[in-house]
């Protein structure tokens, strides 16, 4: 079983650091290091955490028509995406659901795309089927992806790249940076709600870079356990849990990511799978939507727990939930009918058959600290 798992370029380093390795999306990945999930989570919020996210899919789309072609699969403006700019997007299906969410960067002569590990094979097939004739799709299995996240991330990276202008490098933009002796595509973004970077680097140089980053006293290695609690506190969706093929981006509260140019009245209105449902929902609203919930008790509420109203009628299910170390409490996300989505509305989550009181809360659950210049 273990033999069939793929390993990232940092596998040896994870083992050396004492990581507990678990199977995740076909890879052997570190779920935690000896410090444990709580300390790793809090360390990332206080200083800087280094994450190996090399299991994610990295692609380059080449050709003059790449942006035009990719626009047919996502409700996002890519034609006018400035060079060096990154945008969040999602592949939609014909019924307006979500096939995967992804990050797209205009790297100048190509589009750099990061997709979820668990969706990698189907996303690549989807791209090849629909736009494979209009652009060249290069898959990058020989590249690792390292995320450096936290308030000290920029300070640390600036020490390693003294010629790079970090003050002028804002959230959701990309730079080419010389790290570990090799040019890396680095975006100022991440999945924690903190300032930070995602560094795409050839596998051959990944361990050298990881060791160099870990040599700074602010940086600690962080596993997938804390990655999940950090993204949950930041109110960020996890595909397959908070997003799926039945859920529209409007229900998911991701309307902000649907570009004006692709909406009703926009200069390139529609033109993506499921446009009828999605564009109508933007105008008319939806009968259910994703909300944040905070626990009024200490009992952790996890994915799959049923939610009822105060009268005990079932109204939904928790899609992500758990202990939030930075709040020292419990937070969750769920899809609820519109009448229950007002701020501070009270609902009950059933845990081991017992009702646990929860309250609707605006997300993110912790303040975002992205660097906006």
């Amino acid at each position, binding site marked *: 079983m273990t033999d069939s798992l793929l390993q990232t370029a940092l596998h040896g380093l994870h083992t050396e650091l004492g990581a507990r390795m678990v199977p995740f999306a076909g890879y052997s990945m570190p779920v935690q290091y000896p410090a444990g*999930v*709580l300390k790793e989570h809090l360390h990332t919020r206080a200083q800087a955490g280094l994450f190996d996210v090399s299991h994610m899919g990295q692609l380059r789309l080449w050709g003059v028509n790449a942006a035009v072609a990719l626009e047919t699969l996502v409700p996002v403006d890519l034609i006018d995406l400035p060079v060096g700019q990154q945008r969040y997007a999602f592949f939609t299906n014909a019924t307006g659901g979500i096939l995967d969410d992804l990050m797209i960067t205009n790297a100048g002569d190509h589009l750099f795309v990061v997709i979820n590990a668990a969706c990698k094979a189907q996303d690549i097939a989807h791209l090849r089927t629909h736009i494979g004739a209009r652009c060249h799709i290069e898959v990058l299995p020989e590249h690792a992806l390292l995320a450096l996240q936290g308030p000290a991330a920029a300070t640390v990276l600036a020490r390693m790249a003294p010629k790079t202008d970090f003050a002028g490098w804002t959230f959701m933009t990309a730079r080419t940076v010389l790290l570990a002796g090799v040019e890396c595509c680095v975006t100022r973004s991440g999945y924690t709600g903190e300032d930070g970077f995602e560094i795409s680097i050839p596998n051959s140089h990944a361990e050298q870079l990881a060791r160099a980053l870990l040599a700074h006293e602010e940086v600690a290695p962080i596993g997938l*356990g804390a990655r999940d609690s950090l993204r949950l506190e930041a109110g960020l969706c996890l595909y397959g849990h908070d997003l799926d093929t039945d859920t529209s981006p409007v229900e998911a509260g991701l309307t902000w990511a649907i570009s004006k140019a692709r909406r009703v009245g926009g200069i390139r209105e529609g033109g993506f799978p499921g446009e009828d449902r999605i564009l109508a929902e933007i105008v008319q609203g939806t009968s259910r939507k994703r909300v944040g919930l905070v626990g009024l008790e200490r*009992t952790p509420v996890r994915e799959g727990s049923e939610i009822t109203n105060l009268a005990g009628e079932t109204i939904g299910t928790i899609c992500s939930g*758990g*202990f939030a170390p930075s709040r020292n409490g419990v937070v969750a996300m769920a899809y609820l009918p519109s009448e229950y989505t007002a701020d501070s509305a009270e609902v009950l989550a059933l845990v081991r058959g017992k009702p646990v009181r929860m309250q609707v809360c605006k997300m993110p659950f912790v303040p975002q600290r992205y660097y906006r210049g």
Partner: protein
Amino acid sequence: MKYTPDHEWLRVETDGTVTIGITHHAQDALGDLVFVELPAVGKHFAKDEPTCVIESVKAAGDVKMPIAGTILSVNAALADSPEKVNEDAEGEGWFIKVQPDNLADADALLDEAAYKALLD
């Protein structure tokens, strides 16, 4: 100390009562505990019945009764400081003190060597 294959420990006290917790191995496997739910004092549990709920950042589990008995007291400090279990699972991180129905039931549990063999 006696042990169960489910990673509980049981210590027989000089007065014939027993103290129960989870092993160091169990806390390590669970990871950081964030929630502990303790039973009511005076409640009786059969052998193998779940008495306490434990939740780590990652997962939920329970503490089962190694032998039948009645709850004499609980480690109430765990409700606010579940991390005590991670810090000292076989000491300050104890869960419950129990009056066993039959103290001899403890003889059937694993001794330290047998439990260690189980972990290897």
